[in-house]
C-alpha cells in the first residue's frame, strides 16, 4: 500500500494551523485532516490510515476512501506530501 513522505520540517498545530517554512504558505486543516496528517507523518500507509479511521469514526468505507483520495490529492496539489 502507498505510504506518504511528509517533509520533516512540517508541523501541524493543535488548532490545525500548518506553516510551511520553505514556501511561507499557511493552511488550516480540520479535525480529521489533522488526524490523517499526523498518521502520515508517523509513516502509516493508506490501508492503515483507512483502517484506523474506520475504527474511530462512524463512516462507511466507500465514502471514506473517496474523501481520503480527495484529501490526498489536495495535499499533493499544495506540494505538502509525496507518495512513496
Amino acid at each position, binding site marked *: 500500500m502507498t505510504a506518504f513522505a511528509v517533509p520533516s520540517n512540517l508541523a501541524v498545530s493543535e488548532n490545525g494551523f500548518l506553516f510551511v517554512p520553505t514556501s511561507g504558505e499557511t*493552511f488550516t486543516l*480540520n479535525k*480529521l485532516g489533522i488526524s490523517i496528517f499526523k498518521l502520515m507523518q508517523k509513516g502509516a500507509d493508506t490501508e492503515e490510515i483507512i483502517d484506523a479511521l474506520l475504527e474511530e*469514526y*462512524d463512516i462507511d468505507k466507500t465514502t471514506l476512501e473517496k*474523501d481520503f483520495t480527495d*484529501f490526498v490529492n489536495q*495535499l499533493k496539489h*499544495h506540494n505538502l506530501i509525496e507518495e512513496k
Partner: protein
Amino acid sequence: MEKKIYEKPAITKHHSGFMNKFGSSPVTTPKSEVDGVSVNAIADQYGSPVFVLSERRIRENFRNTLRTFKTRYPKVQYAWSYKTNYLNAVCSIFHQEGSWAEVVSEFEYDRARKLGIPGKYIIFNGPDKSEQALLKAIEDGAKIHVDHFDELYKIIELSEKTEKKPQLAIRVNMDTGIYPKWDRFGFNYENGEAMEALRRIVMQPTLKLIGLHTHIGTYMMSAEAYRIAARKMVVLANELFTKYETKLDYIDMGGGFPSNNTLKGQYLQAEQVLPTIEDFADAVTSELFRISYHGSDMPTLILESGRSLIDDAGFLISTIIANKRLSDGKKATIMDGGVNILFTSFWYKHKISPAQPTGLSTENSTIYGPLCMNIDVLREDIVLPNLKVGDRVVIHHVGAYNMTQWMQFITLRPNIVMVMEDGTTELIRESEDLEYIMSREKLPAKLSEFKL
C-alpha cells in the same frame, strides 16, 4: 465504544482576502423542510429534481403586499402576472385572494378564460395582440392596454364593427431616472406621444378610455423611480381631466418589484440593498394623492408585480450526482437540476442550502447542472459544506419565471409539487414523459425506415 461523528477531511490554503471563515461557525444552515414537509420525503416521492411551491408563502406574500398598499391608498386592486408563473394552481391561489388576471399574449388570455376568469377581470397587455385576440377581448369586455399606434388604429377599425365598446388603457413609457429605459413598450411620455394617444381615444366615440398603465422595468432597485413614474401618470390623468373632463377608473403601475435574489453583478446581497415593499408603496401612493379629483372618483391603483409575490415561495430540490476537482484544484459539484429548468441562474446568484445538517468545514465550489453543455453552471462560486453523492440541496427563490421559461432539452421537465396550507402535498404539474414529447412530432413516411 461509541464512534465519533465523521466529517470529511479538509485543508484550506490561506489566501489573504479569501481566508475569512470567521472561526468555525457554520456558514450554511440546512433547509430540511418546506412548511414542515421534509425535503427528502418530497424528493423520495416525486423524484429529483422537483419544484416545490408553498401555498402558505404565496398567500402571505400577497396579503402582506396588498395590506401595505391598502393602508396607504383607499382603492387597490392586484392583477396576477401570468407570465411569472401561469400554472393553474398558482393562478387560482391569486384569484382566490381576489387578484384579477394580467396577460400578455393570446395564449395567456385563453388560459385565464379557461380558468373561469370573466373578461372584465382580465388586463390584456403586450405588443402582440392578433385581430382575433382583440375581437375576443372586446367581446368579453376585457381591459385592453394599447401598446402602439398601429394597434390603436386596428382597434378603432374593429370598434366600428363590434357592438361592444372596447375598454382601453394605454401603456406609457417614460424616463424615471433608471437605466436601462424601457421605451420599447407603450407610448412615450416625454415626447408627447402618450397624450396624443389618449386624445385620439377620447375623441373616438366608439372607444372607452378607462385607465393608464406603465411598467417601468424589472427587478427595480429604486423606489424613487416609482415615485417619478406615479407623478408622471398623475400629470397625464390631471391633463385628461382638465382638457376633456375624463376621469379614469384606474392607474396601473405595473410590476417590477424585486425579489430577494441577488443579481450576478451585484456585490452585496439583495436583502442589503433592496428597498422594502413599504418604500415602494410610499413612493407610489404619495404621488397618486396629487390627482385633481378625489373621494369615490379617485382612480383605483392596479398593481401587477409577480416576481416579488412568488419568487421566494418556489424551491428546486436537486440531488448531488458527483464531486470532482477541476484542473486548478477547485472543487466542482454536479447536480441533477440544470439551467434548462432554472433559467434564472443566468442572472441570479441563487442561494443553495444543503437539505440535511452537514459538517462544519466548507469549501468554495462551482455548481454544475447535469447537461452536457458548458453553459450549464448554476453557481460559479459558492461556499458550501461538503456534500456527498445522493445528498439533496434546496435552491431558493425560484418561483418566478422558471416554470414558464424552462426548456425541454435532452431531458424531461420534472414534477411540480405544491405544499398546501394543511401540510399535505399535491402534484400540480406532472413530469413529462417521452410519449408526451414525441406525440407532437410527425415522421415523414420516407424517413420512417432505416437499416444500419
